[in-house]
């Protein structure tokens, strides 16, 4: 019964959010406020990056505190090509994807040998290395970063135009979400998710967990690179601050806020987190304090994120069952 499934809270809210995102260019056009396009465009870009992180963090259960590295590689793929006057979008994309695949393969092969704290630390270390690399590359702007003059052109499509960028990002996000939903229940996704619960058992079934995780990590890195490419075109500027560790932290917050390992979670989380940020920014200069407090409280209060909250709203079909407190502390 597909209709009734679509009316469940999670797909319903997810669908409404996508509908709202699709209406943004129309509303921005009606209001004559093109600024909204780049504002919400940024939401879309981060939603793509958060969905990418969700592959490894949500499905794979591996806390990567270094995904800003791959966004940064995507950004600098555009910036460095633009520095030499090259505006071919395919070239920008190829550079970013190749860098993310190569660096993802190398760092993944090393970091996935560790788990738990070790994995968090080593991914953080690799992204710091990337940060310091770009800070010290004076030819490409160093600490200050550099403007991107030649934005990505795919034939007649110029991503430097906010409206084109918005629609490309929107279509990519929809495609990514559909793919991510299929991946979740595919054999590959099941191995990743199973290994997050109990890697030994999956290994005992004869499935090489390390290789599955490595493929997941590289895929996640490459999609983050695409988000980087979009971000570069959106802000027309490349700066090492994209690779700073706070960005990796924020991506994790988005995934957890929305709901780890769920399909819509990262999208909802990114939209909610960035809206909260914008709201606080409008209200006070010290918005970071409110944001920090909110993140700490979220971590203290518990799990499941927004999608978890929504799925608890689902009416139970069977006889009334007494509500049980889950994981409550005495």
């Amino acid at each position, binding site marked *: 019964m597909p209709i009734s499934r679509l009316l469940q809270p999670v797909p319903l809210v997810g669908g409404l959010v996508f509908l709202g995102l699709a209406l943004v260019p129309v509303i921005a056009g009606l209001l004559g406020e093109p600024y909204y396009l780049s504002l919400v465009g940024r939401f879309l870009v981060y939603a793509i990056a958060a969905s990418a992180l969700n592959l490894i963090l949500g499905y794979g259960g591996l806390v990567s*505190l270094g995904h800003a590295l791959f966004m940064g590689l995507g950004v600098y793929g555009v910036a460095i090509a633009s520095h030499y006057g090259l505006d071919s979008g395919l070239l920008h994309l190829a550079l970013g994807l190749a860098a993310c695949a190569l660096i993802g393969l190398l760092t993944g092969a090393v970091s996935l040998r560790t788990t738990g704290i070790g994995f968090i630390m080593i991914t953080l270390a690799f992204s710091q290395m990337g940060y310091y690399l770009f800070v010290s590359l004076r030819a490409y702007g160093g600490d200050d970063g550099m403007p991107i003059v030649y934005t990505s052109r795919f034939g007649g499509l110029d991503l430097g135009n906010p409206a084109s960028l918005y629609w490309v990002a929107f279509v990519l996000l929809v495609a990514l979400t559909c793919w991510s939903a299929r991946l979740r229940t595919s054999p590959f996704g099941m191995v990743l998710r199973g290994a997050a619960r109990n890697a030994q058992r999956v290994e005992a079934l004869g499935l090489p967990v390390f290789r599955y995780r490595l493929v997941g990590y590289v895929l996640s890195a490459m999609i983050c690179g695409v988000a980087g490419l979009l971000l570069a075109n959106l802000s027309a500027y490349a700066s090492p601050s994209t690779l700073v560790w706070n960005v990796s932290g924020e991506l994790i917050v988005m995934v957890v806020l929305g709901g780890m390992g769920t399909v819509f979670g990262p999208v909802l989380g990114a939209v909610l987190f960035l809206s909260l940020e914008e709201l606080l920014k409008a209200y006070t200069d010290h918005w970071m304090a409110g944001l920090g407090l909110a993140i700490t409280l979220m971590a203290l209060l518990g799990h499941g994120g927004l999608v978890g909250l929504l799925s608890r709203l689902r009416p139970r079909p069977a006889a009334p069952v007494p509500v049980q407190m889950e994981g409550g502390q005495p």
Partner: protein
Amino acid sequence: MTNLVIAQLLNGLQYGVLLFLLAAGLTLVFGIMNFINLAHGALYMVGAYLAATVYNHTGHFLLALLAAVAGCVVLGAALERLTIARLYRRDHLDHVLATFGMVLLFNEVARMIWGSQPYFTSVPESLSGTVDILGISYPAYRFAIILIGLAVAVASYWLIHRTRLGMLIRAGSVNPAMVSALGVNIGLLNALLFALGAGLAGLAGAVVGPIVSVQSGMGDSVLITTLVVIVIGGIGSVRGAFYAALIVGVADTLGRIFLPLLLREVLSRQVADAAGPALASMFVYLLMAVVLAFRPQGLFPAKVG
């Protein structure tokens, strides 16, 4: 050239003991409670601000150090009881999130109180001169930092190897469940360690205040270097933290000075000048990645058995 090497070695040593002050407390909380505390750098920042403020208002350096340490001990204990103690049983992701939120909060609160411009303070009069060691004259204040760091290292060695509390700490870092089963209140032990670690972080911030710019976010990059130290040294090992802090401190300092010079010998000047600083700043992270990949337990792990 020898003078330069000696001066840089001393600078590396000074950076190393500073990292040790930060790493000592963090590694124990890591080891016993398996807890990742990203907010440790924020305590270092708070210590720096407190000491700078007290020194600028009273002119007493020792009072400033004391205020920073006491303030951070109290703040650390409060943080531990209010939030962190509730997170020990959760997974690492919650640790990262909760303490990441704290980092943002503390950085912003510091900006609200002290403004976003760097806050300046000066080296105390009595330590503003230089001392002659190994044939070079070296700033007395930096030398004092080395002495303070070494004194803390000796004191923590004594605490850990010669006292009952130290025995519990050592036992706790090897097998916390067993220590708890033997009737030791391991939660309290960890709260104590956390507060102690916070105090040391505050001390580190306080002594470094006059030689760096005290500003919001100053703890972030130091924190990450401290995490590198802990991983290289072996999580839960104070001895490891000490050696690794010195290795990282000296390697980083010497690398920044000599790597570009060395590269000039083999590469063209232009390439060397571009690649040298990049390689130097990545060097300690590379070291950590190599250690994690080939010796995940660290170079000097806490002794088991």
